[in-house]
């Protein structure tokens, strides 16, 4: 066989392998979705979907499977974590990429990498040791409330800290890809550093920032263990962020495999998984749409 023929065949093979792998990853997503749907089907047949999603009553023994407390806790914990992490990470990475001296970045970047590698159970323990008593003894009394310290706020804070290394790393990468020519063009016109950041760097990196947020958001929705350890795990609807709660991942992890004697319990938990999966998918799609729009303008 000639060398040219060999090269062409290799090219074809590699192409084929990549195609198969791509198709495979799409099929996996579909398979998960269909699997969950199949398992959730029994409960969808006997209960109305609106009732399942909007009812606050979760009493498996009485065949009441209202998911609302868990869905609402999921959004509260995740929203809080993003509310803390996004501004913090944006400012930190702007500082690191635009203002900090070489010696500071050389010190901080490895620390961030270490933080990223810490297993989530450690973050959970850290939350129990430090954040739980802090919320119980200082934050709750400050607002005139009584709290065990195991609360949505605690979960949000722990989750935010877990998101920081990931988000900072991505954002630094994003800022790095903005060609320095753009910054220099702006500086050359007499702009200050901050004007360059505001009008050029942040605009040029907007798609990257959106991707970073979307990625962290998916992770935040799904993060289970650390949140589960500090969030209190009660099935009541929380009235404030100082109340304990149980987000969807915690609900699933806490209960799946137990008490399966109750009919439909298993199906209800898989419906919870399906809801979680769809939430994550939904926000990813939203991010894509925003990204598409941003890229059309200006970039």
């Amino acid at each position, binding site marked *: 066989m000639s060398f040219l023929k060999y090269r062409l065949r290799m090219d074809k093979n590699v192409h084929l392998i990549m195609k198969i792998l791509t198709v495979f990853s799409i099929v996996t997503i579909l398979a998960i979705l269909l699997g969950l749907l199949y398992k959730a089907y029994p409960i969808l047949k006997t209960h109305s979907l609106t009732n399942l999603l909007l009812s606050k009553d979760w009493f498996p023994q009485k065949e009441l499977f209202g998911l609302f407390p868990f869905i609402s806790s999921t959004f509260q914990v995740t929203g809080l974590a993003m509310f803390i992490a996004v501004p913090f990470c944006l400012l930190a990475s702007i500082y690191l990429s635009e203002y900090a001296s*070489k010696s500071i970045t050389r010190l901080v970047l490895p620390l961030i990498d270490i933080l990223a590698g810490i297993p989530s159970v450690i973050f959970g323990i850290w939350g129990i040791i430090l954040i739980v008593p802090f919320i119980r003894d200082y934050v709750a009394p400050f607002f005139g409330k009584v709290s065990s310290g195991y609360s949505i706020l605690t979960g949000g804070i722990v989750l935010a800290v877990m998101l920081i290394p990931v988000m900072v790393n991505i954002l630094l990468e994003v800022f790095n890809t903005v*060609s*320095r*020519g*753009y*910054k*220099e*063009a*702006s*500086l*050359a*016109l*007499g*702009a*200050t550093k901050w*004007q360059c950041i505001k*009008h*050029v760097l942040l*605009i*040029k990196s907007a798609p990257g920032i959106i991707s970073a947020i979307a990625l962290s958001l998916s992770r935040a929705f799904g993060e289970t263990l650390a949140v589960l350890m500090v969030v209190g795990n009660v099935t009541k609807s929380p009235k404030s962020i100082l109340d304990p709660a149980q987000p969807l991942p915690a609900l699933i992890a806490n209960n799946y495999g137990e008490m399966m004697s109750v009919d439909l319990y298993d199906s209800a938990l898989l419906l919870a998984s399906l809801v979680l999966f769809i939430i994550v998918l939904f926000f990813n799609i939203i991010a894509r749409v925003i990204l598409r729009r941003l890229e059309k*303008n*200006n*970039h």
Partner: protein
Amino acid sequence: MSLSINNQSNIVVENLNVFYNQRHALKNINITIPSNKLTAIIGPSGCGKTTFLKCFNRLIENNDNINVTGNFLVNGQNIYQPNIEITEIRKKMGLLSQRPYPLPMSIYDNITYGPKIHGEKNKEKLDHIVEFYLKEANLWEEVKDRLHSPANNLSIGQQQRLCLARGLAVEPEFILGDEPTSALDPISSKHIEQKFLELKNKYTIVLVTHSLRQAKKIADYVIFMYLGEIIEHGSVEEVLLNPKNQLTKDYVNGEIN
């Protein structure tokens, strides 16, 4: 509105040295840039042309571990003094880089970016600035119907003219060009060259160029650099047509690249 005409605009460089880490990139540069003339800086790639040009508006300081010594006098004032307001220096120098970098905003906003950051708020005045400088850069007719569309949609040649207009809109005294035509098609290059010929009556222009043809065509004064040093400088006739130094002769004859 009139363009600022200032016959006092002058640049004197004394014993300028630039180090990137340990690398001695500019060695003892001494030169007076003639006012209201077009000075071309030529020399093989890597000889320090860009480094030298970036000293004019202190963009050179955007590098890590950079060290600049010597005097760089603009209108008699050393711009490397510690108490100098760097944005004021940069406002005096319009820069046209090797390839155009339109800011991520509309054509209109690209032009008003400079005037706005320097405090201009009057809408009518800004409208006027946009029209005036787009005309000045021969771009007005092509873009007047889509001033509010993203600047990124323009062709490379149009983008470079936009960058010229944007630079002129802050009313600089000097224009710096770092091989501004090297990424352009021949027609766009001609546009820019033609513009530079017109502008040299009003501004002091320093143009780094890789093209001897371009230097011969539009320059009044030529600086030849080699390995971080100025080897020879003088009028076009002196440096390009009758070089004294052997290195300059070799470069002009195309024997150094």
